[in-house]
């Protein structure tokens, strides 16, 4: 009687560790999915004390006023798309950081997305943003 000699060896993949491998893969992809890196824009703002000093020189600086539906550069209404060019033109020839300060005044109802669009354009034009906030004052009314 002849026996056929099998040439193929049957090797099983060890199934004991497949649970651990699957668990580690799940953790790996979970971590990758949950930690998406944040993107953003850094903004350099002068400290409050510096801003007080700059208030004295306010007349010399460029002023951008943000209203709910309009943007004014030194009192002139400007389209949002033209702010960068306008600010760049006004700041041309000014190399000192103190001369490149742009005072931003915002109305209370200006939304953040509009504010960030305007301030991004000012910074792209080389301006250094300073916020002018209205101070809260308590006035005693005589009775």
């Amino acid at each position, binding site marked *: 009687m002849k026996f056929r000699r099998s040439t193929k060896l049957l090797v099983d993949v060890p199934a004991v560790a497949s649970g651990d491998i699957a*668990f580690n893969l799940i953790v790996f992809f979970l971590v990758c999915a949950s*930690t998406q890196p944040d993107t953003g824009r850094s903004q350099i703002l002068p400290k409050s004390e510096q801003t007080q000093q700059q208030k004295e020189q306010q007349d010399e600086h460029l002023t951008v006023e943000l209203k709910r539906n309009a943007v004014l550069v030194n009192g002139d209404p400007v389209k949002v798309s033209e702010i960068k060019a306008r600010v760049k033109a006004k700041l041309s020839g000014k190399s000192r950081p103190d001369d490149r300060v742009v005072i931003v005044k915002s109305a209370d109802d200006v939304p953040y997305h509009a504010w960030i669009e305007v301030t*991004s354009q000012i910074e792209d034009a080389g301006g250094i943003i300073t*916020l002018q906030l209205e101070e809260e004052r308590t006035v005693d009314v005589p009775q």
Partner: protein
Amino acid sequence: MKMKRGKPKVDIPSVAMGDIAFNLLIFFVILAQSQDDSHIQWTPAKADNLKGAGYTRVTVTIDKDQKVYLNGLELSEGQLASRIESHLGDAPAGQRKVMLKVHSDCTAAKFEPVIEAISQAGGELVHILEDKKQK
């Protein structure tokens, strides 16, 4: 003849120790890194030319209800500057980043005092935004 009954020898299987240690390591790394602010609801504003914000210890968020959070904990605007200052400590320039996440429709009356507080605390402000090109 008396036969002593031997105690059965049971070893703790040491084969899986590596896997267990590795999983514990991942677990604690994730816990250490993530500040849980997943409960805060906000939509980022969109902008161009954005860069990676990197890593920071301090994150200030203004949510859709105009509430202010520092590292996921709600607080008032008045407390903000001192709390940021204590978080930043004596960190040198370049390591004083403060991430600011503001809901897209939040108004200037709310977010400008927060920006001022970050500036007062000596924080280096990074606005967290979404790229306009992203869908």
